[in-house]
């Protein structure tokens, strides 16, 4: 079996003053080869892209104040500010429609439709406290054009592939975007223990060494699933 290893890359705190490709050149280029893949945390990519907003800068509408009451506490949309941030990017009436449809489907025993119909940001928005300081007081949207960013990272680094991943300490690893050849299920499995670490560890990038060789060893069926 190929020896795959994960290398968390320590960086400074990245902000909207940074450029994601320059960051990759600075921290990753010297450590990555053609058989390796790279993953970047989706919230950090979003922060670099300036996709953050302070709750104080939002004015929640009546609909946002109403709908958030039905979101279980702890969810990123459970406050009027989180819900308003979603409405600002996905549209107020789309969110309202998705909510109603989601509620009906939930009653019918099929949960999760609100997140499917409400737009991609529905599952990507992080409320306050979800990100490292100084962004712990911000709502962080999902990244913009994550597939294009992943493709450009791969092209510039000359590596096997790149992914944008949403990983947390609760054993949840969601692949937001990936380049051709990357298997989201496999990468999710590799990242499940959150090698990005916590905020203070400042490791928003993880290199997956020898990913290509592992990929080659996968059964044909798994490759076809990709």
């Amino acid at each position, binding site marked *: 079996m190929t020896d795959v290893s994960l290398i968390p890359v320590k960086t400074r705190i990245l902000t909207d003053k940074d450029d994601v490709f320059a960051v990759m050149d600075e921290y990753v280029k010297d450590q990555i080869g053609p058989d390796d893949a790279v993953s970047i945390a989706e919230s950090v990519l979003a922060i670099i892209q300036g996709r953050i907003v302070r*709750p104080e800068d939002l004015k929640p509408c009546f609909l946002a104040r109403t709908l958030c*009451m039905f979101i279980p*506490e702890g969810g990123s949309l*459970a*406050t009027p*500010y989180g819900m308003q941030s979603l409405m600002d990017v996905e549209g107020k009436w789309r969110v309202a429609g998705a909510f109603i449809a989601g509620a009906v489907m939930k009653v019918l025993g099929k949960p999760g439709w609100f997140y499917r119909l409400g737009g991609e940001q529905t599952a990507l928005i992080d409320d*306050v*406290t979800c990100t490292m300081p100084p962004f712990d*007081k911000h709502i962080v949207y999902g990244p913009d054009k994550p597939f294009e960013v992943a493709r450009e990272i791969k092209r510039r680094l000359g590596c096997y592939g790149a992914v944008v991943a949403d990983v947390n300490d609760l054993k949840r690893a969601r692949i937001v975007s990936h380049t051709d050849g990357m298997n989201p299920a496999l990468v999710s499995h590799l990242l499940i223990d959150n090698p990005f670490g916590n905020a203070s560890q400042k490791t928003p990038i993880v290199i997956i060494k020898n990913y290509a060789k592992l990929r080659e060893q996968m059964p044909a069926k798994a490759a076809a699933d990709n």
Partner: protein
Amino acid sequence: MLEFLCFVAALIVLAVVAFKLYCIRLGKSVPVIYTDRRTEFKATEFKEKSMTVACEMPYMNTGKVLCTMMDCFARVQLPQEQFKGVRILARVEREGERRDDGYFEAVLMPAQKGGKLIVTLDLEVQNDDVLETLLAMPDVNVDIFYQIVDKESLYIDKRRIVLTAREVREAIEAKGAMMDND
């Protein structure tokens, strides 16, 4: 037509009442900083021209739903018109999350859960009569501001604690006793 309009109006009223009842059943967050349960200010550090004192106080969300303490900071209310000899710098930290930078990291406050805040005051004497100046200090009001966001709103509230002249005097006496023992 009138009957239909009445039916629609009744439905709206019913929905509003149901929503209000739902909100009442859901409950609210009630974040509390127990300033009345704070510990005495004790000296934690002495330097040539300054003294640091700190106290702890519990905080808790006594409500039924989660809220977030976005920020918390202390503001010292000692104007030079009242007393000129000491400049006081204040910071608030959470127990178990001590920091060197004065930054307060936003923290979730689940219902019926809390922790302790640590208020630290650096008393910097502005002249050469360090001991005399500290002993002459009046009681100092310190306002603890905190910003909360929950299911209903985002707001800033504040509580007040007082660094008493007695606590400063006792901190100095404790330091003196320690030096005598040495």
